[in-house]
């Protein structure tokens, strides 16, 4: 099964290369995002409101799109990024991805630790080595809005810092983004170190 996923991802990367080679139609990616008021919180229950960060999308090296500039002035913190990524109410990246570095943190003698760090998914490719496969700007684009980052716009990976036109959003989550700009920067720093 894992080989199948890898093959899909390899195809995605290959077509990304092809796409990247021609700069046709790329201008539309360049349009600036306006600042909009959106709130963010863990699983949308409570939490401080924040705004959708202003970001500029540019062409990536391997992927069709990237965000070269950080969303926040404060640099990302990789350690905090790991915790945000595993938290089921925040990134919940483990729902779909295997990350060896996280698995290594799972303490087999502690049920809570095993549950938090030991339960991984295989919907997306394992994230081991993503820091070497993609630039920081591309990793940022992937977390912010994967439908723009990947050549496959039908990807099931959720957008963590973008306004989506999704239907039936649970009331507490309406008008909110999944992760704050700072959390995105933290996760990007964490991904960057997965080499």
């Amino acid at each position, binding site marked *: *099964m894992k080989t199948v996923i890898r093959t899909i991802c390899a195809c995605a990367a290959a077509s990304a290369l092809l796409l990247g080679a021609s700069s046709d139609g790329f201008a539309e990616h360049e349009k600036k995002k306006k600042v909009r008021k959106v709130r963010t919180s863990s699983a949308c229950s409570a939490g401080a409101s924040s705004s959708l960060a202003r970001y500029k999308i540019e062409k990536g090296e391997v992927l069709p799109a990237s965000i070269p500039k950080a969303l926040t002035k404060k640099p990302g913190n990789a350690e905090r990024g790991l915790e945000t990524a595993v938290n089921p109410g925040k990134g919940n990246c483990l729902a779909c991805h295997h990350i060896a570095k996280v698995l290594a943190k799972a303490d087999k003698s502690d049920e809570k630790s095993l549950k938090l760090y030991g339960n*991984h*998914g295989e*919907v997306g490719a394992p994230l081991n080595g993503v820091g070497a496969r993609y630039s920081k700007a591309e990793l940022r684009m992937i977390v912010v809005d994967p439908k723009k980052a990947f050549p496959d716009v039908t990807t*099931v990976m959720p957008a963590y810092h973008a306004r*989506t036109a*999704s239907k039936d*959003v*649970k009331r507490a*989550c309406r008008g909110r983004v999944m992760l704050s700009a700072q959390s995105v920067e933290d996760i990007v720093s964490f991904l960057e170190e997965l080499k």
Partner: protein
Amino acid sequence: MRRHLSGILLIATLWPVQAMAAGDGKTEAVKPASGNHPLKELWSGTHYSTPEVRKLQYSDSDNPAMKLFGKGEALWKKTEGKAKKSCSSCHGDAAKSMKGTATRFPAFFKLTSRPVNIETRINLCRTKFMQARPLSPESEPLLALSIYVKRQSKGMAMSVTGDGPLKSFLQKGKDYFTTRRGQLDMSCSGCHDKYAGHLYRAVKMSQGHANGFPAYSQSKKKTGSLLPQVNQCLVRVRATPLKAGSEKLTNLELYLAWRASGLEVETPAVRE
């Protein structure tokens, strides 16, 4: 319970394979009945369960939801309401009259001009013909009757074509299944058509069929209809939940029944 179970496991492993098969829920793939089906082969949710959970489901004495079957049998014969009738006064022996019913549901109900699922149909019988109060969603008596009725079709293949008056409702159910929703912007098909067999945070994702519902959930320690299961998926993607008896749920259930046609009725299933 555990020790008892491993005893059964031992016997079962020594038993010839054939003894397990008939009527015990297929764990082999079935070809979809219709050509324009999103899945190449159908696998019951039971296929993705652990062997322990599967054994529990197949054992009438150990399956926790089978207690409700017994209660349903008693309720079937119980006179209720102003018309002083029971289910059996109209339908007689359920083993005969309800055989195959679950394979055809949700079915079109002429009096309301729309499809209804088994639970709604039971309540329509109560209010219209027995002049009794409807049973509340997820209540023990409603689950018991639903399991009792559906169990009469155990091992029979689901067979919903969605033709005639059902056509437009089936389409609505399909639209619901394939439309992205919730803050995560994900659709039912995005998980269950595309990634069945893959782990989702260490849980094996099934094809999302409804042929085993109502089912017993070990983690919730509770038997539930399809509704709480679908709502759990909707919570996962941070979408608004569905309501019992609603048109949206019934249409979705109709599409799920069409999508599972060919698989055996396994009610009541056991899930982790």
